[in-house]
């Protein structure tokens, strides 16, 4: 891992998402200074605005903030689940980072999603197809990347489930018959099936009980060590951020209020909101 300026994996500039029609002053009248996401003139909602950051290979970046701060919106736009309003993003492994991936056609976006990215949602139903077996879900990712050999697909699915500690004899069962923690682990297997350089984790442990949370976090950390995958971890939970991330962005009302090394932010928060967030940590 070298921290050279041009060695970035993902570069995001001025990423903005606004619901409704923004007016001239919409961006000026919203944000943490006004403590609102809603423009008083036009009633449009600024989910996030002017989000810029670089992510380096193998790095784990945390995005933390209260609910409604726009942290999920950022990763959903980067994973093409949501259409951006403005801004640009470049991904190094895709055309050497020369093309704004947010402007690509749907086919190209699907290619990027399948081959260069993975996503783990809070709700396994968003990431998994409950009509297919867990092996079938992993197969979907592999097939989309052009793997057409059933034996190889099953071998790879077996390895992945073993790696994520899902009982492999249940490979052909549907995820609906699994516990929440197991569903989450199947979702992680699916997300990393094609060895993507970049993984998004959107509130992955929210809704799991504490002991299962710990095991899932352990798994993510292990995978990160093993595969050197770069991650963007979205969470409202500072303990998750502390456990997983190298660097953290603090968001409030759709804006970045502070960013820096995770340790630094947790030890010595500068912005008033970050201070509040850290002081409320149990």
């Amino acid at each position, binding site marked *: 891992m070298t921290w050279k300026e041009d060695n970035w994996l993902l570069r995001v500039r001025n990423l903005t998402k606004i619901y409704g029609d923004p007016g001239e002053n919409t961006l000026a009248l919203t944000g943490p200074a006004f403590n609102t996401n809603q423009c008083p003139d036009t009633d449009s909602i600024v989910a996030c605005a002017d989000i810029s950051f670089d992510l380096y290979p193998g790095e784990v970046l945390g995005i933390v903030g209260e609910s409604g701060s726009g942290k999920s919106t950022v990763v959903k736009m980067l994973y093409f689940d949501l259409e951006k309003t403005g801004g640009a993003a470049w991904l190094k492994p895709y055309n050497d980072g020369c093309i704004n991936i947010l402007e690509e056609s*749907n086919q190209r976006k699907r290619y990027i999603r399948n081959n260069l990215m993975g996503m783990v949602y809070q709700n396994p139903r968003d990431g998994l*197809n409950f009509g297919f*077996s867990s092996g*079938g879900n992993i*197969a*979907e990712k592999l097939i989309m990347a052009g793997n*057409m050999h*059933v034996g190889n697909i099953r071998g790879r699915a077996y390895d992945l489930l073993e790696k994520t500690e899902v009982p492999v004899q249940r490979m052909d069962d549907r995820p609906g018959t699994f516990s929440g923690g197991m569903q989450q682990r199947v979702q992680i297997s699916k997300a990393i099936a094609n060895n993507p350089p970049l993984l998004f984790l959107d509130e992955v442990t929210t809704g799991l009980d504490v002991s299962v949370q710990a095991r899932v976090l352990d798994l993510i950390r292990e995978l990160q060590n093993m595969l050197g995958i770069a991650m963007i971890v979205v969470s409202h939970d500072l303990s998750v951020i502390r456990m997983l991330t190298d660097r953290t962005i603090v968001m409030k009302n759709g804006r970045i209020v502070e960013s820096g090394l995770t340790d630094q932010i947790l030890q010595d928060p500068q912005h008033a909101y970050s201070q509040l967030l850290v002081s409320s940590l149990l």
Partner: protein
Amino acid sequence: MVENIKFSNKYNFAFIDESTKKEIRRKLLKAVAIPGHQVPYSSPEMPISRGWGTGGLHITLALIGRSDVFKIIDQGSDASVNACNLREFVNAMTGCETTFDTSKATLVQTRHRITEEELNENQIIVFQVPLPEPLRMVERYEYKTLQMHAEADYSKMWVSLYEAYVRYGAIMQGSGYPVMVNGRYIMSPSPIPRWDTPNLHQAKTLFLFGAGREKRLYAVPPYTDVEPLEFEDVNFEIEDFSKSACYKTGFKKAFLDELYADDGSQKYVISDSNFLDKIDSEEETHQYTNKYIDQLEAYDVERG
């Protein structure tokens, strides 16, 4: 139907009015231009219910000319109720000659089979299609299937084949096996048995598909690549009739229907009735050949 013959001179030639025929022909040209792509069309009212072959009938009536020789089969049989009624209707509305003989027909309408005898460049075969959308079984929303076709995103279809293989040890789809047309669109070849599916590949004939209830037309032009979906290690297979034989002729190398007797015993008979007649009377016929039949080496084409 008998009454209709009396009043047939009050209808336009081939029942449908000329401007609607023109619309259907235009949509057929579009379908031929984009092999495997489903083209929406008007699907006008017919004197038979939707689901009884209106889609095929629309195409037939839009294309038929006074010199055409018309043949219609239902599951291979010229004599089943659906085939008989539609044959009489087309004959009453056009006065065209009808035939049972596959080689004499210029226009063949079919339900759920391709003729056993190979069709040539001068013939057109029209399919009655109940469910034109091959992705329906994996995606229930129409707007999503349209998008999947537009972007050639067929991963769900492949996963469903994977799932079938995992669950049953083989891809069990008995009829309407999904095919990739011209390397671009996945198409449902109407519910023809797997036996017939390879015959769509690089065929000499124009294949036209009409789904009246669903208001869709599609086509496979002559000499077009049509590949059944298969994995590298799990391959498409046709029905193997090498262990059974037609009870009338002893013929094995054809699609066989299973007949059950009162005592529960079963016997087999060639599904294509005209082909059966020709084999029975030892007339010369020319069957389709494909690599899947060749792979089943056990075939003994000798009689007996």
